[in-house]
């Protein structure tokens, strides 16, 4: 009924970060339309949408603090303060936020590098170099990105969808709940996603993030052909005002051309 939102994500809007905003007394606090995907909505306050005078008159279909018309999991909602929700679920509301604790500092840092994309041209480089003897990157060696060794037959890999850069920086924490915001922020910045298997092997999808972006942090089963890339790969992330971190993978990596992909429900894990 309404198109009046505090913040609206319409059309094919993607990769946007909606963070630390306050939306009060609108028809909807935030409204995400069906084609919008890969957006991160976090640490906002959505309350009193619509105003009580409207909701009691027109009913709950008018709007809500959070209205998500996109398929479940297409966009990431994290730590928003909200009371009412309409969408495919699971509902992120009601939520009154987390207590103040040490995570705030981490969240500030994550948010900070996310907002400083405009400072990119002045960025200086800080290199974090990972060598091919990492367990997550076994036996790699070869030309950057495109050259490859022999392709294997179709294989099935099972693992968790992670942002590759964050995973390589702190793999032990990459699958923890506290890592979710980091992953979402990296995804919003275009950092490549990968499937991390239980033994730590990373499989980078050949067609980019498109198929995996709605599955960040989810456990998946993917089938397809795997090739080993051999040249170094660089994953670039903005950090702070003027810095850019380059995670350089030396020794190659595995790339999978996904043929089938399915989310593994929690009960099957």
């Amino acid at each position, binding site marked *: 009924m309404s198109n009046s939102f505090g913040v609206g*994500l*319409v*059309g094919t809007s993607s990769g946007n970060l909606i963070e630390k905003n306050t939306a009060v007394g609108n028809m909807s*606090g935030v409204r995400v339309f069906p084609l919008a995907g890969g957006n991160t909505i976090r640490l906002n306050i959505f309350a009193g949408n*619509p105003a009580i005078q*409207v909701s009691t008159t027109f009913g709950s279909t008018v709007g809500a603090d959070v209205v998500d018309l996109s398929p479940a999991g297409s966009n990431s909602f994290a730590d928003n303060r909200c009371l009412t929700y309409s969408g495919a679920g699971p509902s992120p509301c009601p939520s009154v936020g987390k207590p103040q604790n040490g995570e705030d500092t981490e969240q500030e840092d994550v948010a900070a590098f996310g907002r400083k994309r405009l400072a990119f041209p002045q960025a200086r480089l800080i290199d974090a170099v990972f060598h091919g003897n990492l367990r997550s990157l076994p036996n790699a060696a070869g030309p950057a990105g495109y050259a490859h060794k022999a392709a294997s037959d179709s294989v099935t890999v099972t693992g968790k969808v992670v942002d590759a850069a964050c995973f390589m920086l702190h793999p032990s924490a990459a699958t923890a709940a506290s890592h979710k915001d980091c992953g979402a922020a990296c995804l919003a910045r275009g950092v490549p996603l990968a499937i991390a298997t239980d033994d730590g092997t990373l499989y980078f999808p050949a067609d980019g993030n498109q198929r995996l972006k709605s599955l960040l942090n989810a456990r998946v089963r993917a089938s397809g052909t795997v090739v080993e890339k051999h040249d170094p790969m660089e994953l670039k992330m903005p950090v702070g005002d003027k810095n850019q971190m380059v995670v350089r993978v030396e020794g190659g990596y595995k790339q999978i051309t996904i043929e089938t992909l399915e989310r593994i429900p929690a009960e099957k894990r």
Partner: protein
Amino acid sequence: MNQFLSNRVILVVLAFSAFLLCAGRTHATEISGTISTTLTIYEDSELTGDVTCTVVGAPCIAFGTSNITLRLNGFTMTGSASPPNNCTSFPTPFVPEDGITTAGQSNVAILGPGLVRNFARMGILLPKSSQVRVERVTAADNCFSGILVSGTTDSDIARNVSVRNFGFDGTACGGT
């Protein structure tokens, strides 16, 4: 044949010049007072005083190029709507009387603090843009959305306040 081509080139050049004049192009970096036709900015710009917009059927301020910043500097941009009065109707004619539009540009920023209010459609519209930063802006009492991200990618919308944005014709004016 050559004569014909030469004439056509001249016509094109003249037409292009006329377009620039009509588009209201400006290089001014300081904005204040009344805006009666869409102000298109082509370089970093900032409000140096409150702005009253009387533009009819078009945005108040539009980005005309990429890689620039508009700073509101704590001032207020006020449109001519008073929701639910003077709002554009939905779905038609839905005229683009927005406060600020990024107009498809990329790597641009709208930085508060500042207030964008009383516009007949959106307070701030990000249509088909990329890498837009909107920070610390308050969007209030606009007829449709405070901030609308439409087909835009890789942008940060952070630390803004969006309040009481609706009231177009045909619905109740809630939140007031």
